């Protein structure tokens, strides 16, 4: 691949295999940078990165912030809790105001799916999607795939299972897209009320029975479940959800010996995963965090040093 062309990172959908592999290679090098005594390189010196978080998220924000700082960029953090966002006008007005500071990269997390093309009309900065509604969370999928690749060496033919609230999950959608690009076979499992209508068209096999779904899985990604979903009758009770969809000690015994268990964090112990197996499961989840930083450094580096004609919109 000659030059990185994309002005924005909106989703895994638009990335080619080659582009994803470039990000992986960079992430490997950046892992090395974080092990040096001076954990800094001047690659993004003088660039301004704005973390524009319209949805609360300490973990993702810190990850992006540190990634930008380690590459010597100037970082601005803007957050606005969901409740103070009354009308969409605030979002676009905010972008317009920030534009006065000539930011180079906007890292955006927002509660509305597919909002980024609209936002990109109001700024010259490159936009990195840190999660848009239920649509995509590309850096999460990249770090998940990278973590699996580090251990399994290749993603081809792997059986990947995603468990939980698929309907509302951007992590699920990005991961399904990403793993499929590398030839993995993806399955989803959750209560029927939390799997979208016509989801089969995404190419993932649908299971309602976790024991069946995980039988020969190589990778299992457990998604967070929001307890409020019970209020909207997506499932009758937390107890029943845990009984059917939680990774209990019994279920852990039945998994393949080398099955990897991932979680985007933070884990609801004893809801998604039993706290009895914390020791077994936690190290890899923490490795995901480490890899997340390296992946985000790679992404910011590519978007921040991209040379190309100015494009409007996407």
């Amino acid at each position, binding site marked *: 691949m000659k030059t990185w062309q994309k002005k924005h990172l909106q989703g895994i959908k638009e990335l080619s295999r080659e582009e994803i592999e470039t990000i992986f290679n960079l992430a490997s090098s950046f892992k090395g940078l974080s092990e040096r005594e001076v954990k800094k390189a001047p690659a993004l010196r003088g660039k301004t990165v704005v973390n524009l978080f319209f949805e609360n998220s300490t973990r993702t924000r810190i990850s992006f912030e540190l990634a930008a700082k380690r590459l010597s960029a100037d970082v601005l953090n803007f957050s606005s809790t969901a409740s103070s966002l009354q*009308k969409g*006008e605030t979002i676009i007005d905010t972008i317009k105001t920030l534009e006065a500071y000539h930011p180079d990269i906007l890292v955006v997390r927002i509660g509305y*799916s*597919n909002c980024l093309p*609209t936002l990109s009309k109001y700024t010259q900065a490159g936009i990195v999607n840190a999660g848009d509604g239920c649509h995509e969370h590309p850096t999460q999928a990249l770090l998940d795939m990278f973590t699996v690749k580090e251990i399994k060496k290749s993603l081809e033919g792997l059986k990947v299972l995603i468990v939980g609230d698929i309907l509302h999950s951007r992590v699920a959608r990005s991961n399904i897209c990403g793993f499929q690009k590398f030839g993995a076979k993806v399955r989803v499992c959750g209560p029927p009320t939390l799997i979208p*209508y016509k989801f089969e068209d995404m190419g993932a096999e649908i299971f309602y029975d976790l024991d069946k779904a995980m039988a020969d899985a190589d990778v299992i990604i457990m998604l967070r479940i929001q307890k409020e979903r019970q209020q909207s009758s997506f499932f009758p009770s937390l107890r029943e959800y845990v009984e059917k969809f939680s990774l209990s000690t019994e279920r852990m015994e039945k998994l393949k010996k080398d099955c990897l268990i991932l979680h985007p964090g933070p884990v609801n112990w004893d809801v998604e995963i039993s706290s009895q197996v914390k020791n077994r499961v936690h190290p890899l989840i923490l490795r995901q965090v480490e890899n997340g930083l390296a992946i985000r450094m790679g992404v910011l580096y590519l978007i921040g040093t991209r040379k190309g004609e100015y494009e409007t919109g*996407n």
Partner: protein
Amino acid sequence: MKLVIKNARIINPDQQLQADILIQNGVIDKIGKISEKADKEIEAQGKIVFPGLIDMHTHIRTPGQEDREDLESASRAAAKGGFTSICCMPNTVPAVDNETTARWIYDQARKIGLVDMYPVGAISKQRQGKELSEFCALRRAGCLSLSDDGDSVKDPSLLRKALEYSRMSGLLLISHCEDKNLSGKGVMRESSLSAQYGMTGIPSISESIIVARDIELARYLNTPIHLAHISTVRSLELIHKAKQEGVQVTCETAPHYCVLSLKDVVENGFDSRYKVNPPLGEESDVAAVRQALQSGVIDCIATDHAPHLQGEKELPFQEAPFGFIGLEWAFSLLYTFLVKEKIISLPLLVDKMSSVPARILKLEDKGLIREGNCADLVIADPDRTWTVTEDTIASKSRNTPFIGYTLSCCIEYTIHRGKISYKNV
């Protein structure tokens, strides 16, 4: 004033002929060879002339939201699009649920003099769906039809009473078919695309369930009902069957359901100018709508012209209000995408946009170019193209996905009651 149109190619749904037209005192006096002199003469060689269009479903936002559209801008937009009569929906502030408000709209529009505005009265007081409004008083004030558009009548027992009461007033009930519990917070058609893109979907059954309900009521009470903006395969199947069984149901669709699908929403990056209710459908819905126009299952076309402020559409898709303006290019759009593509014929388009609405609303002197009829006509050049641009839009609002579209069949004259209400030569 005496007005003569020379060498007109007259398009009536059942008959086309080449002739001159003499208009006097707001009426079509004579069709044939006219040799007498007139105050004004329009040469129509090479142009088509058809009866003034009638829109059964427009939102004029007046009273109460005149920043989006007022009677004057609505009249100009209508005239530009070849409309000589429009029916304005009552979801204004206040709602048109009483004689005074209805009368005011009717009279003001008359004063402006570009188009006949027939207010649509609300079925229930303040459109709350609880108590019936005064149907007879509304009829007196100029209403031809009733609707709670924007909402369906949730309580079937109230709709039943409304249908029964409408027999007495002679007003047609127009139903907005949507089950709001099913459509919920949806913003686009529920489909594999909405699943992939993580968007809350509006299932097609939200429309067809109410279509089924309303058909049953109309059948049971043997009373006519008209279904607004039909957009799905399933709704059309139900209506087709009901008509075959003799139920007095008529229906309309809007131009955008014949031209755009939900793929256009996705391909345009979820630009809120593609957000409308009912939402744009699947390709199968578009095909079904086109087929239904040809077969007659869909009786007529209505624009559902729905002005919204620029600021309101400059919002993320989820926050923006639903709706498109459309009076000004409805005819040209359908001429370009349906007539030119030989999906329907020109006489059929004229039928759907003028003659049928006139029949349904019982406007006996409109909808056809005929001696003695009201002199409402349109002269258009089928080969002249024009482009929809932001700065040439007559409406106060700009919310439409069709900006930039180059369309055929440019309207050159709109004549309303014998006077030129729009000219573009």
